[in-house]
Structure formats: C-alpha cells, structure tokens
C-alpha cells in the first residue's frame, strides 16, 4: 500500500468493500522492451478485476468470491477468501494506449509496453 492510500484512509476515506485485503504475490519481469506484471489472485473472476494506470502508478484490485459450502462443517482452514490490492510505481515511460490485462487460472497478467522513443542521440565531444 502506498503512503497516498494510507493517508487517504487516515483522512477517513473508507473502502467500499468489507473483508480482509491481501497483497497478491507478484512477479515483475521485462522482455523485449515490455514490462510484465503477474499477480496471483486465486478465486477472482475477470469481471471483478480492476487495473488502473495513472501518472506512473499501477494499481491492481481483485475481489474474490466464494460460494459457501452448505451444510458442511469446517475440518481445516488455512486460507481466507478476501480481496487483493497492490500498487506499484512504474518509473519507465509506458505507452498507455497499449497496456493490456488478462486473467487466466487466477493469475492476472498486465502487459506494459514501453513508449517507442527515438534512440538517444549520441553527443560528440569535441576537443577544445
């Protein structure tokens, strides 16, 4: 969670959903000028995923839903079903138009291609 979000919460802005919120585990890697963010969000339907990229800040949110097991008793409980939320600051310049998000098998993959910029100009140093 970023300080910004934390500050907002301290100012009394509350979340609109209840239940625990977890930080999803992520892998971030780069391949041929494209940044990939892969986040684990088991139990989250693609309809309930929100990806926001604004001013170099990437926010991912997911709401997991679970059907209760009717007429059953608990034997073992190792995980809670809740929401996922995580924020990243992306330093590189990203081509917002080409940002894509895909949800498959509880894994959210966000593709962030870098903006196509002309290669840096080489500056010749002249001897004085």
């Amino acid at each position, binding site marked *: 969670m970023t300080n910004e979000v934390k500050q907002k919460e301290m100012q009394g802005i509350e979340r609109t959903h209840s239940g625990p919120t977890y930080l999803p585990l992520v*892998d971030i890697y780069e391949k041929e000028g494209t940044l990939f963010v892969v986040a684990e969000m088991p139990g989250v339907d693609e309809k309930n995923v929100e990806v926001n990229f604004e001013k170099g800040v990437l926010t991912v949110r997911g709401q997991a839903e679970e059907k209760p097991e009717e007429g059953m008793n608990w034997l073992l409980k190792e995980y809670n079903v809740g929401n996922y939320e995580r924020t990243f600051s992306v330093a590189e310049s990203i081509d917002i138009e080409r940002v894509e998000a895909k949800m498959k098998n509880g*894994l959210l993959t966000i593709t962030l291609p870098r903006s196509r910029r002309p290669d840096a100009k080489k500056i010749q140093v002249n001897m004085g």
Partner: protein
Amino acid sequence: MRKDYYLNPWNEMDRLFKEMNHLYRQFQTGTPYAKENSEFPPINMWSNEEKITIKAEVPGIDPECISIKAMDDTISISGERKELDAEKEALTYHRKERPIGGFKRMFKLPYKIDADKVEAKYEKGVLRIVLPRSEQDKPKSIKVLVS
C-alpha cells in the same frame, strides 16, 4: 502426520519464525501478504456425514500438472509450479515473489472415501475436490425391535 510434526522442535521454530516475519510485514505495510505463512497450496476442508470437500488455492498452475491421489482415508495433492515464460533467457526479473518448484500435501481424512467417485474441478485458480464417503463406512442406523 501431526504427531511427527511435533516430534521435531525445528518445525515449530520454523513456524514461529514465519509468523513473526508475517506480523512484521503486516505491521510495516498495513496489509498482509496473501496466505504466505501457510504451506503450498493452502487448503480449506469441510465435511459432513456424506462427503468431504477440499479447496486449494493453486493460481497459475495448469490443471494437467496437478495430480490427486485418493485411497481409503488419505488424499495427496501434488504438482509443480513452473516458470512463467518458456523463453527464460530473454527476460529480466525485477521482482520474483511467486515460488517455483514441486509441491505435495497429504491428508488423513476422517473416514474412508470412495476413490472411484472423487470429483475434482479447477476454476479461477482454485481446485475443488469432492470426496464422497464410502458406502461401507457410512453409519447405519439400527432399528430397535420391540419383542
């Protein structure tokens, strides 16, 4: 299985250590990391007289790479968490939190199940297994005859 766990004092130390790390991180960020102090995959289990239901969070794992073996009153779930991209050489990791490698979990169930009728479904990264109780194992109600 539980008994073996407590025979080794390091298991408990290890668990405490993980829990302290977890608490510390939670204190720092305000948000707990998803299910990090649990073994993989984390499991939820329910039962009634008729059946046992198991749910496991296995995000991003190809269902074909998960093996479920059930016999009498035991079940094992195993598989492998693989690297994401086949072309590993061409990519640079900035952050790697998702572990890779094999996993296996075994459980002793409260009663014998009918292994032929076990059903497993994989949806949205969650595995759901339903294990019906074996017919022979079901409690029979016995009528008391009045002579």
